[in-house]
């Protein structure tokens, strides 16, 4: 209502400042560029913030999830006008079609796949037999059945992720709701495209049948059975002191998802943000998370070593690891508190503060 509240006017005013891009715009541009780079890396194996192992794991997850959704859509299409479509296109059509249509993947879905793949990759390389897991042993003494049930469900969900890397096998699509919604419509769109290619023209009946099938899948999805949700329920079932007690064990057994959920419960940050901080480029973010959970130097050393395959293999070298622990020692609780307080600021405030720093 007020002239000064008009965002258009504000934007216009901002551009008067020497033509400098607003921080919001530059952030969007950066995000777009990063997404494009990620897609290129996924499609062509170009260089970037993906290690080879992480890239392969992400493609494995993407293929498995698409296979599963395509299979489910095919079952929904039975007895309808599009019944024959899956057979005509051939099994795994969507997984192969996405190779030339990577732009269909949204940044949010790709980001989630990257996190999921990182968690899965670390588990694959650091498997601890259930009988030897200190996660079970520590909690068992407390008789916390709710936790043990949730941990068992989480373990089974994670085990689904690091099976043999067969690109034509389905993987249970245990995604959070938004990402599952995105994935199902992506697969549906690819199948519509495949149908048009087969018939030479768009068939409204086919499109309608695929849309109905996608809607049915979406309506019966249960994100609460996904590993992300199960990790959160696991952490919620523990008292605070147990969360601190189990955090080193979670890192020691490469249970990144569980560790992130423990931090989420204690610090109030979002699970995916915690994973991004763990898997990102900045050691300071990792220091903060570890310090928040009162992780000892030895476990911090082990964590840096653990994460190297997804952050940068060079970080796993002895000199780098020693440097990591040295800087971790200097990163005390007050540093961690400031880091946390900054992250809990509203995004708009963070943008403005960043703008102040730049001016």
């Amino acid at each position, binding site marked *: *209502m007020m002239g000064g509240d008009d965002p258009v006017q504000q934007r216009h005013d901002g551009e008067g400042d020497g033509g400098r891009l607003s921080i919001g715009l530059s952030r969007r541009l950066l995000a777009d560029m990063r997404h494009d780079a990620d897609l290129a890396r996924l499609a062509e194996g170009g260089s970037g913030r993906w290690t080879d192992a992480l890239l392969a794991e992400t493609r494995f997850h993407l293929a498995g999830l698409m296979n599963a959704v395509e299979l489910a859509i095919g079952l929904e299409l039975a007895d309808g006008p599009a019944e024959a479509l899956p057979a005509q296109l051939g099994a795994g059509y969507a997984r192969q079609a996405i190779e030339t249509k990577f732009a269909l993947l949204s940044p949010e879905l790709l980001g989630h796949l990257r996190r999921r793949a990182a968690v899965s990759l670390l588990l694959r390389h650091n498997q601890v037999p259930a009988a030897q897991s200190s996660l079970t042993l520590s909690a068992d003494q407390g008789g916390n059945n709710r936790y043990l049930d949730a941990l068992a469900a989480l373990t089974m969900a994670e085990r689904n992720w690091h099976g043999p890397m067969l690109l034509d096998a389905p993987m249970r699509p245990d995604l959070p709701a938004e990402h599952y919604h995105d994935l199902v419509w992506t697969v549906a769109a690819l199948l519509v495209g495949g149908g048009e290619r087969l018939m030479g023209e768009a068939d409204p009946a086919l499109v309608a049948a695929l849309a109905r099938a996608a809607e049915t899948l*979406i*309506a019966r999805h249960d*994100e609460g059975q996904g590993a992300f*949700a199960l990790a959160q*329920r696991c952490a919620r079932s523990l008292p605070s002191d147990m969360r601190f007690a189990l955090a080193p064990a979670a890192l020691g057994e490469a249970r990144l998802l569980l560790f992130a959920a423990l931090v989420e419960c204690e610090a109030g940050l979002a699970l995916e943000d915690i994973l991004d901080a763990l898997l990102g480029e900045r050691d300071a973010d990792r220091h903060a998370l570890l310090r928040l*959970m*009162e992780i000892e130097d030895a476990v911090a050393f082990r964590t840096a070593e653990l994460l190297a395959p997804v952050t940068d293999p060079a970080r796993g070298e002895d000199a780098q690891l020693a440097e990591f622990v040295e800087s971790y020692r200097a990163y005390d609780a007050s540093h961690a508190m400031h880091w946390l307080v900054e992250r809990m600021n509203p995004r708009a405030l963070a943008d403005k503060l960043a703008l102040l720093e730049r001016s």
Partner: protein
Amino acid sequence: MSAPLSGEPVRARLDADGRIIAAEEPLARLQADAGGDPHGLIAVPSLAALVRLAARLHIPISRAVRAAQGDADISMWVQIRPEESGFALSIVDWQVSTPRQWPGELGSLLSRGFRQPEPGWPWQVDMQLRFRQVDAGHAAINHEPPREGEPLTAYFRLDAVIDEDVSPMPLVEALALRLPFKDQHARLRVDEAIHYRISGEPLFDEQGALMGYRGRAVRFGESRVGEKASTPPPKAEIFEMFGPGLGRRVDQALRQPIGRIIANAGTISEQRQGSLREDYVNYAADIAVAGRHLLEIVDDLADLQAVERPGFTVAKEEIDLADLARRAAGLLHVRAKERGIRIQTPPLGEVAPARGNYRRTLQILCNLMANAVRHTPRDSTIWVRVDVEKGRARAIVADQGGGIDPSDHERIFERFERLGLSGSQGSGLGLYISRKLAHAMGGEVTVDSALGQGARFTLDLPLWRE
């Protein structure tokens, strides 16, 4: 705050727009505490976001959310399932923590930095300033706490404080501008000896609309440890402050901010910047009315200062009571017309020469007629007559209102007496000032009335003699 029985899910049904059709007690309480309507949209932002997500994607949701309820954090595992005509909402894990457990040194650092105990008791009101949440129990307030749904203004009497550095009515100004406020002075209506200082901040919903206010009420004398204790406003604070600088202080401290309040509220109520919801418009109009009332009080206070000064006198001149009565009626014409009231004035040509002060006599007549307009029924008549008899000139204002019990005839001329009035109706100073002004001119104001028979107020002044 009410938490569900351990392990028992808390259920609710929502319609297709996300409005609550039915909700079990803990969730209904959370909704009320967040300032939401029992059958309105979910008012807890984190829950509302999940409902919108489920509605947008038509997908079941199952995840953790956090919400604040009073001083506690509520962590919930929420399941939302879209159905044919709405949503089924179920909270399967309801955890209450207060305060949040921060790890190790962080906790102590944070507690040092941010967790000083607040004095007073917390309150929350909705858009209509009705109490929605009160936690006065722990503060040992030694008086009845407000009831849920009770208007804040029915519980507290808000006081204007004259000070050059602060707004006289911070709450009113903040309401008009949707801003936080602090140090609004108030008294309990049930016991006006109990003074409070109220501070608050606005609450907005996800769309940015005002949902209400929340804040703390601190009794005078109560303060944070290490903080200078606040003292109650001095006895009869308004009068104690009267001094040579009052006129300037009134102008600077009251007129300007009240003028701003009226102007802003007027702008909002007239929707000059675009259309608004009807209740917002009415609300702004109420604020403007209250502002004008405050301005009248300012006028009265300035007059009060004058009439209470020892040796107060006014310049006397020849005046015509009949002419002044017609002028006063003209000034009140609009206000009377709004209520369908006719003011019958002395006919043109009739005169009643008196000895008095033109401006002050007009003021008295305006006050008497304004009272009559306020008390007389709609679509009735007020008669204003003048006569000259035995060396005195008189103006009589007669209305058809409910009348005044003879036992109250003297009381109504006392300071701050607002017999039968409430809210923004009068300051209780008008008749007191009118009589003082009449005395200063050698005259008198009297009343002749009985319950159910209307009232006749007479202004009596010495006759003008050359």
